[in-house]
């Protein structure tokens, strides 16, 4: 029987090498795979390029990974928010690179990578400084810019329910970028709140089919970034 379950979080992230490109699911705190990120901090891979909508909050999760000096470049749409201090500091010190991508373009570039589409055209950024250096082209009298796919070596994903084949469901708006990142990464690593047997997820309700998932670890009581921050926690 196909079984993608791992029993240990450290084992699931053990082979992420220095220099890897890593997608991290989540939009702000919702859907952020904190346990997998903390395991990556313990594991210590450096010089990572990380793709996420944001740059983390407080001193836990993605912000802690950045704060630990493991990330050399962020690809994101919104690198600052009310509780993000780590990235802004490193960025102003010139110690971390930023590729700013509008949110919809970020989502579509990730999907394109998963769908085998090397490039597409979008109206987003036309007429702005973010279109500088991009190839533009007219279709039906309107100008669009060309955007390339965005792939990753690994994706770290949080889901609600998983079966051993890797079929996943999510909870509410914690879904956000995660189904797309599962498609776009060579190796997709998932932490699930609940594990069920194959067949227990209705085939009509599967959000991420198992073909896009490589490894799953069960984390029954995941911590939530907002809770950790409210408690004043930091990691490690």
């Amino acid at each position: 029987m196909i079984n993608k379950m791992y029993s240990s979080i450290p084992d699931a992230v053990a082979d992420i090498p220095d220099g890897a490109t890593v997608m991290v699911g989540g939009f702000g705190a919702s859907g952020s795979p904190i346990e997998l990120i903390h395991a990556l901090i313990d594991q210590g891979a450096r010089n990572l390029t990380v793709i996420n909508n944001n740059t983390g909050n407080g001193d836990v999760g993605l912000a802690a990974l950045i704060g630990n000096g493991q990330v050399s470049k962020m690809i994101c749409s919104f690198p600052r928010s009310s509780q993000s201090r780590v990235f802004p500091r490193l960025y102003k010190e010139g110690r971390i690179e930023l590729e700013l991508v509008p949110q919809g373009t970020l989502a579509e570039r990730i999907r394109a990578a998963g769908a085998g589409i090397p490039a597409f055209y979008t109206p987003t950024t036309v007429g702005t400084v973010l279109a500088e250096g991009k190839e533009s082209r007219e279709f039906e009298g309107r100008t669009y810019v060309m955007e390339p796919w965005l792939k990753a070596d690994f994706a770290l994903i949080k889901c609600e329910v998983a079966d051993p084949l890797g079929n996943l469901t999510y909870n509410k708006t914690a879904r956000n970028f995660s189904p797309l990142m599962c498609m776009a990464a060579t190796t997709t690593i998932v932490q699930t709140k609940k594990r069920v047997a194959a067949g227990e997820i209705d085939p009509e309700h599967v959000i991420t089919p198992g073909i896009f998932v490589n490894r799953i670890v069960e984390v029954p009581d995941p911590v939530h970034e907002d809770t950790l921050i409210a408690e004043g926690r930091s990691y490690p």
Partner: protein
Amino acid sequence: MSTGWSREEMAARAALDIPDGSYVNLGIGIPELVTRFVPEGREFIYHTENGMLGMGPPPADADRDLDLMNAGKKYVTAVPGAAYFHHADSFSMIRGGHIDVCVLGTMQVASNGDIANWSTGAPDAIPAVGGAMDLVQGVKHIYVITQHTTRTGEPKLVERCSYPLTGPGVVSRIFTDLAVVDVTDNGFQVVELAPGVTFAEVESKTGAPILPPA
């Protein structure tokens, strides 16, 4: 100091111009107040970029679900008939022209419809764009709610934006504390003045030529 409209009145005035049954995306700040002033007999369906249609009001603290946020990362609820989806589907709704109205705050808006609301362009600022550029290019009608001038009295309705653009020529209507202003082929055009506000006052506080109410 003129009387003019309060923040709530600006939101209520904007809500009046949104047709029944519209799919609406609201920016952060005053635009969020629109939900409180939906005219009698109308229903709007709220879209939030992070992956939901049918967004409802904030929950009581005890009822909040840590996995149910809006694009501003505030906790929200779902109304009956809501749907969740991933980010590519969410921005397909935006980019594909399926959202009817987007109401945004702004730093500047120009008489040719240009909007600048994402960056001051200051050299030490950390650029952060989020979904703003997708929204202004994709949504059918871009409305702006803004104070007519900055806190220091500078016009926010200008001839040309000095801040970096979010998108060119996209804004159709502006709701300020002083007036409702359309962006037309002839530039700014006042369509309605707030109670007690004169056209002369609006004109003096606008950084571009502006036409009086017809």
